[in-house]
């Protein structure tokens, strides 16, 4: 039971890292809190659902589609909302109000368009894609079904979501720590003023980071039907709280902290699900309160708000 819980916690932890990463990237670069983050995840989930329902497109190829669509959506949205916000006296506080409003608008529009019914994608779809990939890679026929890790059996959809999230997290770290755009982004995270003085086009970097944040939320949304259960237009608010808990646990504005926060959250979540399942929904709030009381700067402490 313990091994199962830890491994499942790891898979979910990688997924929660992916959920939190976009929110933390936006906060780190712009010092604004995107309270509509969960709603963009919800839109990503509906994109995956409709592509599957209408065109039978498997969720795996939906990943790059969702990322690109929301990355591109992020640019005009950034220039429409954020530069004005950053000129305000207290952009951090104002961002709460503005993005809360945006969250309500997205949720209302989604409800008008798609109603309130719960929707899902059959878990076997992800398993089928993974079986096909593994068969191609190994040259053997791999059957679609539960996947065994260290003697424990997990739904293929969980493993696929965990691995894909892990790859997504690695790609984000590669981007931030190994590319020119990445270190320019981290420079803005360290000091916006110094970045401007160094000739960095801070608006361009922020727009890209904002688009990236939305893209990551949408990619996390593609896996939502498999890890978070059925999808509805109202799911965004809960996801935003979860992602907020993840980044506060790790350290606000610190991308490395998100990985730590995601893993701590994922493993705690699975322990709660395994041993006190009726209390599991309380977890984000309990962890948030505990971290804010004991380590207000997150588990990475003094490194908070650094790149």
């Amino acid at each position, binding site marked *: 039971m313990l091994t199962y819980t830890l491994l499942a916690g790891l898979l979910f932890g990688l997924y929660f890292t992916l959920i939190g990463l976009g929110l933390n990237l936006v906060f780190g670069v712009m010092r604004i809190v995107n309270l509509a983050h969960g709603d963009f995840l919800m839109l990503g989930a509906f994109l995956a659902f409709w592509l599957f329902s209408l065109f039978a497109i498997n969720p795996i190829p939906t990943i790059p589609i969702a990322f690109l669509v929301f990355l591109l959506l992020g640019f005009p949205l950034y220039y429409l909302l954020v530069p004005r916000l950053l000129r305000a006296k207290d952009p951090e506080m104002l961002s709460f109000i503005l993005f809360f409003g945006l969250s309500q608008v997205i949720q209302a529009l989604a409800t008008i368009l798609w109603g309130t019914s719960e929707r899902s994608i059959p878990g076997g779809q992800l398993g089928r894609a993974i079986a096909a990939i593994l068969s191609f890679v190994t040259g053997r026929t791999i059957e679609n079904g539960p996947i065994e890790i260290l003697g424990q059996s997990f739904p293929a959809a969980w493993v696929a979501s965990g691995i894909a999230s892990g790859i997504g997290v690695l790609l984000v770290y590669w981007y931030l720590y190994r590319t*020119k755009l990445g*270190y*320019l982004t*981290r*420079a803005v*995270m*360290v*000091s916006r*003023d*110094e*970045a*401007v*003085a*160094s*000739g*960095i*086009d801070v608006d361009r970097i922020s727009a890209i980071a904002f688009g990236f944040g939305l893209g990551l939320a949408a990619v996390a949304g593609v896996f939502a039907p498999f890890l978070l259960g059925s999808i509805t237009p109202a799911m965004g608010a809960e996801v935003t709280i979860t992602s907020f808990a993840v980044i506060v646990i790790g350290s606000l504005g610190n991308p490395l902290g998100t990985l730590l926060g995601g893993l701590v959250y994922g493993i705690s979540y699975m322990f709660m699900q395994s041993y006190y399942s009726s209390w599991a929904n309380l977890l984000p709030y309990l962890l948030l309160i505990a971290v804010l009381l004991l380590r207000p700067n997150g588990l990475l402490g003094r490194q908070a708000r*650094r*790149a």
Partner: protein
Amino acid sequence: MPPDASVSPLLSVTGIEAGYGKVQVLWGTDLAVAGNESVVLLGANGAGKTTLLKVLMGLIAIWRGRINFADEDITSLRTDRRVRRGIVYMSETSGFPALTVDENIRIGAQFLSKAEARLRAEELYSIFPMLADRRRAAAGSLSGGQRKMLGIAKALASNPRLVIMDEPSAGLSPLLVREVVRVLASFRGKGLAFLIAEQNVKFLDLADRVYTLDGGRIGFVGTVAEVHANDALQRAYFGLK
């Protein structure tokens, strides 16, 4: 080297007025820096030195006046475009503490091609060997003197035409100040102009000309020899004589 009156200066600032909110800090400031010239801007705390430098970089909005650089009006140009044209700014913080030394230098060289940037970084590492040894270390882990050298290396990474420095001696011991002055002096006469806001008398060793700024207005303009000959200036800015 004092500017040649027949040649238009590299940087010319005319009638600058600027401030914060409703508080005016600069009152019709004029200043010029020729190519290859080192100008030191002296002024007490609150005289408006940092404000003037930030206006030159486009970091603070200008209320009135005009800034020309290399015969181009850059008054309303964005900061990144000023940097592209060859004006760089070294703030008191000297870079990004959470980024590595190498990343800081690459940020300085961001407008060069990848190959040029790599070549430039190696040139700078040969000039600043103490940075070469610590190129993978976080800038925040460097000593005060090393950090200042990193700030200079970062500023020079883009092969600029004008380096604007805000109190490069801030937080340094007299020994390190001498080292910073020595390093900067080694770049004089190599097609590079400096505009350095300072309170430290040691930086006069670098200056071709000196401006004093008092209450947001330019007071004295002259050579270092004229500063040394002026008892009132010596008393006002260096507590000497």
